[in-house]
């Protein structure tokens, strides 16, 4: 019955059990982020409105990915898969927009 004690290490952190406080901490941060999104959107910051909204959304997304989706405690392979998806997405936006933005130049 002692086999329970070592499997966390044997799985390379795959069975990592996080302290419950981390989940509540991330949850609180997500709620604060949502409120911050609404508050900052009501202030006229010109072009910075978009930037602020996206920065807050990216921080919230990162918290969900790292802690709720356990990527922080996963293998390098999972890291690679997770980043590959978002890297592809950034490529698509960047290459599309370099065309649309520069058309009026």
């Amino acid at each position: 019955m002692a086999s329970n004690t070592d499997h966390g290490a044997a799985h390379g952190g795959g069975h990592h059990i996080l302290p419950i406080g981390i989940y509540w901490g991330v949850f609180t941060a997500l709620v604060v982020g949502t409120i911050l999104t609404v508050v900052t959107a009501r202030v006229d910051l010109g072009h910075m409105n978009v930037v602020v909204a996206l920065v807050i959304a990216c921080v919230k997304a990162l918290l969900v990915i790292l802690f709720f989706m356990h990527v922080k405690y996963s293998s390098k392979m999972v890291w690679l898969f997770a980043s590959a998806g978002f890297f592809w997405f950034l490529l698509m936006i960047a290459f599309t927009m370099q065309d649309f933005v520069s058309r009026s130049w």
Partner: protein
Amino acid sequence: MSADHAHALPAGVRPPTYSHFEDLAQQEESEKLGMWAFLITEVMFFGALFTAYTVYRNLYPEAFMLASSHLNPTIGGANTLVLIVSSLTMALAIRAAQTAKYRQVVWLTVATMIFGATFLVVKYFEYMEKYDHGLFPGPTMFRGEQFGEHAGGARIFFSIYFAMTGLHAFHMIVGLGIMTWVLIKARKRYFTPERYLALENVGLYWHFVDLVWIFLFPMLYLLGAHVHGIEH
């Protein structure tokens, strides 16, 4: 009470390892990577719509601002919080399985489903209201007179709004279906500290759907929030 544990794996007993894997750790790593590979295709799926949004917002900035101010940020924000709570209960359900708290797995699954369903009900009323106000982008349903010269761009905004939130809502409905399976299994104490990977993968899907909404909310609901004097 011992009968309650009938379906749980005895301590130390692990799920079967299939012959083409070296050991259970490699098998579970593969299952997890498979889920991530699926999520990458999901990023591509939604990514095309996010790109369409970026292109058209760039082309029609004023129309997007005007059209966005017809969405209610309070309702959208409240729904965002509902989804965040459902992500928390989902994450805690996995932790409950990891720590062999079988009753918690069941009620946290039920809570996740209730919050997910709440989100969809709110979305239904939002959709109905938009339809009644002639903002649904169908051939005869869209009455864009209040947008004046920006009617064309506003129509594109609402096309993108319905496409993106509709695809997101579809994912929520699929998620509720998967959670029904989780609930049936959880009631039989299928998810144990030795065997919770399927639950973890369901969690990855649920959190991904939450991620999409984290971006959709500011992109769709809040573009006109700083412009005063826009009629709601």
